[in-house]
C-alpha cells in the first residue's frame, strides 16, 4: 500500500489503490441511496414507503456488518486509501460505528407512521402554506418517501467527512451531508411555515458557512501548496511562509466547522432549525451532524494544525466559553422544548470543544465518547418529544408538559432520565462523558475552562430541572396534550437511546477502551 504523502492523485494514467473492504460501509450507504432514488421513480406510490424503509434499514445494518467485519482485523494504526484522501483509522472507525448506530435510530424515528398518521413528513413540500392545496394536504396520509434516500446520502456524507484526510474531500463530504439536511428540514407535515423558514434559514446560513470553509481551503492551499492535512502540517512546521495565509485560512475553515457543530457564537441557526424541522429530522441532525462536525474538527485540528496550536488555542478557548455561556443562559429563557434542547446542544457543543482543543489522546477519546453518549441521549429525547401531542401536532410548548407524569408516568420518567443524563448526573452516560472530557482538559492545563464548564453545567441543569418540575410536580392543564402510544419504530429508537445512556453510564469501560484505541493516521 503506498504511503499517502508520496502519492499524487493528479498523476495521469495511474489509478489509485482502493482498499474496498475498508470503505465498504460507505459504499453500501451511497449505493443504497442511489438505488433509493431510482426506486422512488420506478415504484408505484403505495409500495414506496415499505420498500424504502426496508431498504434503508437493511442498508444500515448491512453497512454495520461490513463495518464489523473490517473492524475485527483492522490495522491498528489505521490506513489511508483512495490516494490518501480517506484515512480509515481508529477515530474514524469509532465515529463510523457511532454514526451508523445513531443513523439507525434516526431512521427508525423517521419511519414511524403511527404517532402521526402518514408520518411526520409532508407529501409535497413545495405547496405554499395556507393555500387550499396545503389544507387538503394536511388531511392526506401520504408522505414524501424521498426522505429515506436523502437520509442515507447525509449519513454517507457524514461518514466520509469524519474520515476525510484532505480538505477538498472534506468539503465535498460537507456538501453531501448538508444538502439533504436542508431539504429534510422543510418537510414537516405540521406548521409548514416554520418548517420552510427553518429550511431556508439553514440553507442560507449553511451556504455561507460552506463558502467560508471553501475560502479557508483556498487560502490554505495557497499557503501549503496542497490540500492534504499532512502537507499543511508539514508546511506549518518551520517555514518562512506568510502566517497570514495560514491563520486566515484556519480561521475561515474553523468557522465553517463550528457552524456545522452549532458551536456558539455560530449557533444562530440552531434553535430555529431544531424547532422548525420535523422532529425525527431534528433528532438525526442533533445526533449525527454533531458527531460528523466534531469528528472533522478533531481531525483537522490534530493532524494539520497541532504544531501551531499555541497561536489559535486562545481563540477557541473564547469560543468554547461563549458557546457554553450562550447555551446555558439563553436556554433558561426558552419556553419551547425543542428550542430548549437546541440551546442545550449549544452548551454541549462548548463542552465538546473543550475536549477537542485539548489535542491529547485523552482529549480525542473523551470527545468521541462524549459524542457517542450525547448522540444517543439526544436522539431518545427527541423521540420522546415527538410523542407528546395535541390536536395541532406536537405540543412543544413547555406549559403543555405540565403534569405529564400523571397522565403518562412512563414517558415522563423516560424523559426525566434523559434530562438528567443531559445534565450530567451520575449513572448516566452524560456524567461519564463530562468526566472524561473535563479530566482530559484539566490534564492539559485548562483548569479555568473546566471550572467555567462546570458552572455552566450547573446553570444548564436549572432548565432541565424546570421541565422535570413541570412534568412531575405541576397539575396537568385542562386541555393538555395527550401522549400518543408510540409505534414499534419509535419505541425501539427510544429504548435504544435510553438503554445506551444507562449502559454507558454504568459500564462505560468498553466504549472508553474502543475510543482510546489509537490516534489519527494520515
Amino acid at each position: 500500500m503506498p504511503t499517502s504523502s508520496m502519492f499524487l492523485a493528479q498523476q495521469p494514467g495511474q489509478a489509485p489503490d482502493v482498499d474496498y473492504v475498508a470503505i465498504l460501509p460507505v459504499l453500501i450507504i451511497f449505493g443504497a441511496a442511489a438505488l433509493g432514488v431510482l426506486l422512488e421513480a420506478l415504484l408505484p406510490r403505495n409500495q414506496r414507503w415499505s420498500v424504502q424503509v426496508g431498504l434503508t434499514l437493511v442498508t444500515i445494518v448491512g453497512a454495520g456488518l461490513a463495518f464489523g467485519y473490517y473492524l475485527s482485523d483492522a490495522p491498528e494504526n489505521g490506513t489511508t486509501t483512495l490516494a490518501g484522501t480517506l484515512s480509515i483509522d481508529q477515530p474514524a472507525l469509532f465515529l463510523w460505528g457511532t454514526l451508523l448506530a445513531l443513523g439507525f435510530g434516526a431512521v427508525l424515528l423517521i419511519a414511524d407512521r403511527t404517532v402521526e398518521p402518514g408520518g411526520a413528513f409532508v407529501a409535497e413540500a413545495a405547496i405554499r402554506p395556507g393555500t387550499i392545496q396545503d389544507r387538503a394536504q394536511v388531511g392526506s396520509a401520504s408522505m414524501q418517501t424521498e426522505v429515506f434516500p436523502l437520509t442515507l446520502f447525509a449519513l454517507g456524507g457524514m461518514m466520509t467527512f469524519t474520515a476525510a484526510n484532505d480538505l477538498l474531500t472534506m468539503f465535498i463530504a460537507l456538501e453531501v451531508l448538508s444538502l439533504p439536511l436542508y431539504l429534510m428540514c422543510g418537510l414537516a407535515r405540521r406548521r409548514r411555515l416554520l418548517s420552510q423558514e427553518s429550511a431556508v434559514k439553514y440553507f442560507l446560513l449553511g451556504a455561507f458557512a460552506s463558502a467560508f470553509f471553501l475560502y479557508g481551503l483556498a487560502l490554505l492551499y495557497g499557503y501549503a501548496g496542497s490540500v492534504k492535512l499532512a502537507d499543511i502540517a508539514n508546511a506549518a512546521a518551520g517555514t518562512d511562509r506568510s502566517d497570514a495565509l495560514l491563520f486566515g485560512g484556519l480561521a475561515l475553515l474553523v468557522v465553517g466547522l463550528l457552524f456545522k457543530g452549532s458551536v456558539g457564537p455560530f449557533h444562530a441557526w440552531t434553535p430555529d432549525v431544531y424547532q422548525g424541522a420535523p422532529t425525527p429530522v431534528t433528532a438525526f441532525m442533533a445526533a449525527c451532524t454533531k458527531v460528523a462536525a466534531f469528528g472533522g474538527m478533531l481531525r483537522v485540528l490534530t493532524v494539520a494544525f497541532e504544531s501551531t496550536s499555541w497561536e489559535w488555542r486562545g481563540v477557541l478557548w473564547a469560543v468554547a466559553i461563549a458557546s457554553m455561556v450562550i447555551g446555558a443562559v439563553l436556554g433558561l429563557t426558552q419556553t419551547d422544548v425543542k428550542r430548549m434542547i437546541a440551546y442545550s446542544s449549544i452548551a454541549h457543543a462548548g463542552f465538546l470543544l473543550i475536549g477537542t482543543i485539548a489535542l491529547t489522546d485523552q482529549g480525542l477519546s473523551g470527545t468521541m465518547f462524549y459524542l457517542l453518549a450525547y448522540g444517543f441521549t439526544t436522539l431518545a429525547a427527541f423521540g420522546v418529544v415527538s410523542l407528546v401531542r395535541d390536536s395541532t401536532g406536537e405540543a412543544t410548548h413547555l406549559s403543555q408538559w405540565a403534569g405529564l407524569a400523571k397522565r403518562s408516568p412512563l414517558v415522563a420518567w423516560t424523559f426525566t432520565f434523559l434530562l438528567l443524563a443531559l445534565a450530567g448526573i451520575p449513572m448516566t452516560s452524560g456524567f461519564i462523558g463530562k468526566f472524561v472530557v473535563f479530566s482530559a482538559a484539566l490534564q492539559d492545563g485548562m483548569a479555568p475552562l473546566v471550572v467555567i464548564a462546570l458552572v455552566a453545567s450547573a446553570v444548564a441543569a436549572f432548565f432541565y430541572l424546570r421541565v422535570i418540575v413541570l412534568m412531575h410536580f405541576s397539575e396537568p392543564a385542562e386541555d393538555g396534550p395527550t401522549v400518543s402510544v408510540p409505534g414499534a419504530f419509535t419505541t425501539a429508537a427510544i429504548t435504544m437511546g435510553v438503554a445506551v445512556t444507562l449502559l454507558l453510564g454504568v459500564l462505560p469501560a468498553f466504549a472508553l477502551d474502543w475510543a482510546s484505541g489509537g490516534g489519527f493516521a494520515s
Partner: protein
Amino acid sequence: MLLALLLLPLLGGIAVAFLRDDRTAKLAALAVSLLELLLVIPAWLAYDPSGDRLQQTLSVDWIPAFGVKFSLGIDGIALVMVALIALLVPIVVGGSWADKLPEGRNAAGFYSLLLVMEAGMVGVFVATDVFLFYVFFEAVLVPMYFLIGRFGGPRRQYAAVKFFLYSLLGGLIMLASVIGLYAVSAEQLGEGTLDWATLAEVMRTADTSTQVWLFLGFFIAFAIKAPLFPLHTWLPDAGAEAPVGVGVLLVGILDKIGTFGFLRYCLPLFPAASHDLAPLVLVLAVIGILYAALLAAGQDDMKRFVAYTSIAHFGFIGLGIFAFSEQAATGAVLYMVNHGISTGMLFLVVGMVIARGGSRLISDYGGMAKLTPLLGGLFLLAGLSSLSLPGTNSFISEFLVLIGSFDNQPVFTILATIGMILAALYVLWAYQRIMQGPVRGNALVGAGGGPGTAMAPEIGARRTISDLSGREIGVLAPLVVLIIGLGIYPKPVLDVIGPSVQATVQSASEAPAAQGGN
C-alpha cells in the same frame, strides 16, 4: 457484606415501586428496612476497631481506562453512620405510616424512593474510591429531590429545586477537584487513580497551593451539604417543605455527608490546606452556631425551627473537626451520631404535633401537654437532648468537642459555648410556647380557618386531640432508649470510632505545615 447492605435497599426499593397496594408497599418497605438493620449487626460485629483502617473491603475494576474501581470498605466513622442510617430508615417508615400523601401520589412511589435513597446514602459512606463516592453523592440528590418535590408541603417545588441546585452546584465544583485529584495522581504515579488510600499517600507530598485549590472544591460541596453558614439557606426551605420522615433523613443523615466528607476527604487528602484554611472554617462554624441559634429562636414555623437548630449543631461539628485535636474530633463524630438521633426524634415529635394540630406554626399552639402529656414529655426529652443536657447523649459529644477544641482554639470555643446557652433558650422557649400554659391557639381550640391554619382550612369545631398511638410510641421508643443509653454509656460507639478518628487526625497533623495536634 457491604455490597449486600448496598443492594438490599436498592433492589427492595425498585421492587416496592411496582406494588400497587399502599398497605403492601408500606409493609414491604418496613420489611426491607428492618432486614437492612439486621444486616448491619454482623457488619458491626465483624468490625475490628484495632484492625486495618478500612475493613471488609471489596474492589472490582470498573472503568480501567481511568483507574476507577468499584471499591467499598468501612472505617469506624463510616460504620456508625451506616448503622445510624439503618436505624433511622425503619423509624422513618414507621413514622410516615399514617402520613396523608398529596393527592394523586401513591405510597409505593414514596417508599420506593425512600429505599433507593437509603441505598445511595449507604453508598456514600462505604465508597472508598473517590469517583464512586462522587457518584453516590450526586445520586442521592435525585430521590431526595423527588421526595421533596412530589410529597412535600405547599412550597415543595421551590424547596426541591433550591435543594437540588445548591447540591448540584456544590457537586459540580467538587467534580472539578475530583478530576484535579486524578490529574495530580496521574502526574505523580504515571497512571491516574482515584483510590482513596492511594490518593492520601500521593497528596501528602503535593504542594500547598495545589492542595488549597482542590480542598476548596471539596470544601464548598461539603459546606453546602453540611450546611455551614453562609451556604445554609436551602436547608430551612427543604426541611420545612419535606414530609416529616424525609426531613428526618435530610437533617439526620444527608447533611452528615458533608461533615463525613470533611473527615474522610478534606483532612487526610489535603492536610496542609486544611491547616491553612482552618481559621476560615472555624469562623464560619462559629457564626453558624450563633446566627442559626438566633434564627431558631425567632422561628414560628416548627419545621424551620428544627432545621435552624440543626444548622447550629453543624457548627459544633465543624468546630470539632477543624480544631485538629483527637478529643474534639471524637466528639464531632459522636455528635454526628447523636445529632441524628436527637434531631431526628425532635423532627418526628414535631411532625406528630403538626399531624394533630394541622398547622406548622408555633403560635397556633399552646398548652398542648395538657391534652397529650406523653407527646409533651417526649418533646421535652428530644429538646433537652438537642440542647445537650447532661445525662442525654448530646451532652457527651458537645462536651468533648468543646473541651478538645479549647486547647487549640480557645477563642472560638468560648464563642461556641455561648451557642449552648442560646440552645437552651430556643428549645425551652419553643417547648414552653407549644406545650405549657393554658390550652390555646387556633390549632388546638379550633377557631377554624385562622391565618395560620393554611394546612387544614376545614378545621371547624373544637378538635379532639389524642395522645400518642401505639405505633408512634413504637417509633419513638428506640430513640428514647438511645438518647438515654448513649448519654450514660457511650463507650460502644466511642470504641468503634476511636481508632479511625485518631488516624484521621494524625494524617492531618503529619503534614509539613502541621501545628501541634494532640
